[in-house]
């Protein structure tokens, strides 16, 4: 329990209990002056909870927090900010309707002269410019935050933390929505801040990022601290081993798919697909591709390449202005998800909480929802017994944990939520399964399981369109890969015929590993 005075921030025996779950089970953690300390772990390991406790979002159940050698109690966000601890949230927590400058000064209001102190526009702009420069953002501070990209928003959040005079900046998975280039830029900013004497706790689940930017690394697993080391004295496989708590069996399943020729009629054929200008996001231009039965076709593209837009266009959520779609050789028009479902095309969204599931409903209800009339008498009257038994079949097949049909989906882990969305698709007798980043935000163990599942579904005859930014995942899972850059397919290749380096080069940057 002795406290070492060279540390800026320390926790001893930190415990956080939620109703039914103990998220942190006694964590000892130290943060030095001018240090980037990476905090890694699988989903549900407690990393987010930990930084949220430090930032006053949650108050700890038990345990001690020391700041500059003094025991402190952090009961709310204001307490944390007074100490100089600020959290940059996973989702940008900026007001999109206000300008960059207004957002930056928002947190400093009330520091000098109270909330009623007059705001001078020129002062605000000057403050904003100062901090934007530190984070290397060359945008007009009068820009509305709503029009910024996600990477820029992250940096604005960092600028705001600096404006609040934070000495400890906690970054909660800041890189997960970023492209490789944007992530690099963030790392540069982090190093710059370190040079200026700031300390950072950097939460991530990408091990390679730890080695790119951090000085020390701490691994959490199931709410315990299981490993902590100087980054220079460890290596990625040791860190991953501690994250998993067991040897990685095999990250990727074996492929036995249609490596040979794709004879016959493609299940899904897209010719010259172009989406309308008025929609949000990337415009797709002249996309042509084919997916055969039993095949996994990877559409590999970085964030902003248009892969999500492609998935949504194929189920009629994005308007197609030109091009044809053929299903089993027959031309079809898909103007809405209703029509897509009828044809057997199902899109499993990347943002499964928002677009994939009804959180307050049970696993069973979510699974049967798309074709609820099939389990109903006369297509109308629900038969709970039938619903539960159908759901149980899919729960068993996909190994959803817990295997309780009546369990509410919102309480499931990311990986299990993903399985429920896939179960929805399979229950609806989908022929073409479009998976958008199916292993995003899913812990490593579940990643392996979901990848195995994708492969086995293809082997059973499903046609899978895998939209991913993970080059290794694509190479390991797909029979063929189409490379998507800025809304265009720049090439389609047989996986066996291309190398990782070539693929990365095509994408114009570094591909994310897992």
């Amino acid at each position: 329990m002795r406290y070492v005075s060279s540390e800026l921030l320390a926790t001893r025996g930190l415990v956080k209990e939620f109703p039914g779950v103990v998220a942190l089970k006694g964590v000892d953690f130290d943060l030095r002056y001018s240090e980037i300390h990476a905090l890694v772990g699988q989903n549900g390991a407690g990393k987010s909870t930990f930084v949220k406790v430090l930032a006053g979002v949650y108050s700890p159940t038990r345990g001690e927090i020391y700041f500059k050698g003094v025991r402190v109690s952090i009961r709310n966000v204001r307490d944390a900010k007074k100490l100089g601890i600020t959290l940059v949230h996973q989702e940008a927590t900026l007001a999109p309707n206000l300008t960059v400058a207004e957002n930056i000064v928002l947190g400093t209001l009330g520091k000098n002269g109270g909330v009623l102190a007059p705001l001078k526009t020129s002062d605000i702009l000057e403050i904003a410019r100062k901090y934007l420069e530190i984070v290397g953002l060359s945008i007009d501070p009068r820009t509305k935050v709503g029009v910024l990209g996600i990477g820029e928003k992250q940096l604005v959040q960092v600028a705001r933390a600096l404006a609040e005079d934070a000495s400890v900046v906690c970054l909660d998975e800041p890189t997960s929505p970023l492209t490789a280039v944007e992530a690099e830029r963030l790392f540069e900013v982090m190093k710059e801040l370190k040079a200026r004497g700031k300390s950072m706790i950097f939460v991530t689940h990408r091990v390679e990022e730890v080695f790119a930017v951090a000085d020390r690394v701490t691994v959490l697993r199931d709410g315990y601290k299981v490993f902590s080391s100087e980054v220079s004295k460890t290596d990625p496989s040791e860190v991953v081993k501690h994250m998993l708590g067991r040897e990685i069996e095999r990250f990727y399943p074996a492929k036995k798919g249609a490596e040979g020729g794709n004879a016959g009629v493609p299940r899904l054929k897209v010719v010259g697909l172009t989406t309308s200008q008025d929609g949000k996001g990337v415009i797709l231009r002249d996309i042509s591709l084919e997916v055969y039965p039993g095949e996994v076709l990877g559409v590999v593209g970085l964030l902003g390449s248009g892969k999500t837009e492609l998935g949504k266009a194929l189920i009629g959520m994005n308007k197609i202005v030109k091009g044809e779609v053929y299903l089993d050789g027959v031309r079809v028009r898909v103007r809405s998800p209703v029509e897509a479902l009828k044809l057997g095309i199902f899109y499993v969204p990347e943002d499964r909480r928002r677009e994939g599931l009804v959180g307050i409903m049970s696993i069973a209800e979510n699974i049967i929802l798309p074709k609820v009339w099939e389990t109903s008498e006369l297509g109308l009257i629900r038969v709970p017994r039938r619903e539960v038994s159908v759901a149980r079949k899919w729960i068993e097949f996909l190994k959803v944990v817990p295997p309780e049909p009546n369990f509410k989906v919102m309480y499931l882990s990311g990986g299990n939520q993903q399985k429920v969305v896939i179960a929805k698709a399979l229950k609806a007798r989908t022929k073409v399964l479009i998976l958008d980043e199916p292993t995003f935000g899913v812990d490593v163990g579940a990643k392996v399981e979901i990848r195995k599942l994708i492969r086995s579904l293809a082997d059973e005859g499903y046609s899978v369109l895998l939209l991913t930014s993970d080059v290794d995942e694509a190479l390991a899972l797909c029979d063929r890969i189409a490379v998507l850059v800025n809304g265009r397919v720049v090439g389609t290749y047989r996986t066996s015929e291309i190398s990782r380096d070539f693929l990365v080069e095509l994408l114009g940057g570094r591909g994310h590993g897992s």
Partner: protein
Amino acid sequence: MARKLSLSLSKLGRPLRELLRYELGGPLVALMALITASSILSPRFLEPYNQRILLLQTAPLALLGLGESMVILMGSIDLSPGSTMALAGTISAMTFTRFGHPLSVSILVGVLVGLAIGLVNGLLVTKAKIPSFVATLASLVAGRGMVLVLTEGQPIVGLSQYRVITEEVAGLPTMVWLFIAFGVLNYFLLKRTSVGLVTYAIGGNEEAVRYSGVRVDAVKLFNFILAGGYYAVAGLMMNARLEVAYPWTGWGYELDAIASCVLGGITLSGGVGSPLGPVVGAYMLTLLTNILILLGVNPYFQWVVKGFILVAAAAALTRGVRYVK
């Protein structure tokens, strides 16, 4: 005596906690508390005569609440109940008195008027993509206007034949049987049919339901139409009870309808609450007025009390939520 009381209370504790775990648990506990308090405050409260009046007053409001709940459970809101019930009641009454059609036809016309307004609301929301608050606000205003134009502001008299709805059958007025029947129907529809599942799902996460390929707009339209039908039945009940169709019938009732839902445990953000909630809520709301009258309190005071009760109910519903808008 005091010890005995606390003993019986602790005995009561367990089943009470058990009851609170159900969707309708909270409202039922509140209802029991209100009934107990009222019967202690006024011995006349539990008399059959008083209860009969209470149930007759509850009936139309319960129907409005049931309709409103179909909309609120989807995460939308309907401000048209009051005007819809008035317009349905008025046109039905005119069909009967001015145009001399038989009662059955007049009732049918009234119901059709309600369904039509529901259809308009539904189309405004699903096709014109106008937020339900604004779309139904327009119906609230325009609907009342139409009533005033049609009646020239004068009540329509001579509706004694509507009394069949208030006549007793098997010990209770038909009207009370009607609202019990509609309550059961609503429960069946929302809890036992696929339309009901989709209704709850839309309230839970509309985006996800759309991506699933479910006909969201069709279900929305259906619910708005059915809600209009419920309001129309309430309007016909008013005709029967008063034997007069007043142009100001249902003025401000949209708020009572929403309050019935909230008191009945239906959250305004959608997706949560029992289909029977509005019936319990409507009874509680009527009971409050009733007991205040029995106690001889200034009748204007009822609005103040209702306001407090509403806040208490809403606070109980949002317990555990971090913030609301």
